[in-house]
């Protein structure tokens, strides 16, 4: 019975796939419409940010700039995707209030649209970064074939949490601000700028428990070291993704029908 219901839910989503497609387009086009560089900003912005960060931290850590830049890029890609998709999904229902109150659309479409658009952004940025990495002396390895798998796991994990955020923000609007601060803290508590082993002592457990550590490794191993991630990392990340998605979907479906009254 409940399986059947879930199947209905999915088939309904499928019926609305063109709406999803339009939402994604809207997301991608709108941001930089009528700007001179257009979509190029999507690429330029993270590239500039990461370059500055790479210069500063490679100096602090006394590391070779090129090596550190590749190290940082590889960690920044998964973190940035997670952070933006969780943060922006909070606006997905609030921003479409007018539509939700006028016409029936499965509400999952809205956070999904944002996540898919950000995924496209992220893949494009990663590609641009990778071209730069190659130019400054990175290697093309077979391990890079793992990146799509990494993206799938990262997407599912982030989307699950984004779903919880989407609903929660409708009830507590303060969350939009809280999540921004939280992400800032999380950036420093995730081994993005440094190696996981580097944070020793009292806070080492944060790195060990931080789910994002696994996802950063999924990208860093192939891009930085040119090897496939360890099986244990992949298993942990896979488990976290499934868990996050299951909790997210459960939470979303439980609350979505009341959202129209609270917007």
């Amino acid at each position, binding site marked *: 019975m409940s399986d059947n219901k879930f199947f209905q839910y999915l088939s309904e989503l499928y019926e609305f796939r*063109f*709406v999803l*497609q*339009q939402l994604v387009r*809207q997301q991608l086009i*709108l941001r930089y*419409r009528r700007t001179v560089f257009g979509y190029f900003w999507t690429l330029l912005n993270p590239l500039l940010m990461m370059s500055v960060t790479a210069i500063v931290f490679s100096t602090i850590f006394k590391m070779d700039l090129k090596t550190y830049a590749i190290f940082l890029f590889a960690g920044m890609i998964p973190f940035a995707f997670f952070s933006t998709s969780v943060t922006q999904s909070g606006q997905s229902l609030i921003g479409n209030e*007018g*539509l*939700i*109150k*006028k*016409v*029936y*659309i499965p509400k999952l479409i809205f956070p999904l649209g944002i996540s898919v658009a950000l995924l496209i952004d992220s893949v494009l940025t990663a590609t641009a970064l990778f071209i730069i990495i190659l130019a400054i002396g990175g290697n093309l390895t077979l391990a890079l074939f793992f990146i799509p798998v990494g993206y799938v796991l990262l997407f599912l994990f982030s989307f699950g949490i984004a779903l919880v955020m989407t609903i929660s923000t409708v*009830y*507590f*609007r*303060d*969350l939009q601000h*809280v999540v921004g601060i939280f992400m800032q803290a999380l950036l420093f508590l995730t081994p993005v700028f440094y190696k996981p082993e580097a944070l020793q002592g009292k806070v080492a457990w944060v790195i060990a428990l931080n789910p994002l550590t696994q996802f950063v490794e999924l990208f860093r191993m192939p891009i930085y070291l040119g090897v496939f991630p360890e099986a244990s990392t992949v298993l942990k990340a896979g488990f976290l993704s499934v868990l996050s998605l299951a909790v997210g979907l459960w939470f979303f479906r439980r609350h979505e*029908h*009341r959202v*129209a*009254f609270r917007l």
Partner: protein
Amino acid sequence: MTKIIVDDLSLKFRAYHEGATSAKEYFANLFRTTKRAKYSDFWALQNLSFSIRDGERVGIVGRNGAGKSTLLKTICRIYEPSAGKVTVHGRIAPLLEIGAGFHPEFTGRENIYFNGTILGYRKEQLRAIEQEIISFAELEEFIDTPVKYYSTGMYMRLAFSLATTVDPDILVLDELFAGGDATFVKRGKERMYNMIDRASVMILVSHDQSLLRSLCERFIWLDHGKIVADGDVSVLDRYAAS
């Protein structure tokens, strides 16, 4: 064939007294011993039961706040019933309130596609009717301009032409709308009636008695979320006399 079955439908609204709760207030309230009532429940619809068959043209009447629009929204699945059930056979076309789904930064053409997909059209279908929508709205010149630069009249014409192209099974109308200059209103009415003719079921909420009389043959009179009467034009007469 029965198209819509409303079975013992009730809908509860919760009115919150202080707007949006913030997380801070929420947690502060967790520790408060004497709890103030922060919301009051309000039954917008109470135990409604009726069914609508193929070919029926139903007008819903009642005073402001009687629950007419809420009932429409529940039939369109925007609101989930608090109790009871609504079963709908066939495709419902809600008439988006003028331009509800329009995005100001998008051009008229892009909005046709965005709104069209929401109304259930596929891209190929939209490509086929696109030209007709544009020419009916008399917007050939401005169709590739972002709609935020449109005049109110242009905006309304586009929204109206788009909304009235739908080929719905079940048509749900909340207060007939019309916009633009006199000639457009006249052409608009014609187009509206054509659309109503194509639908197998039409439900209309309106305060306009003559319009209701000309378009509907069955009337449901709501008051305070309950059905007062359901029947032929005599119901409308009684409502009008009350």
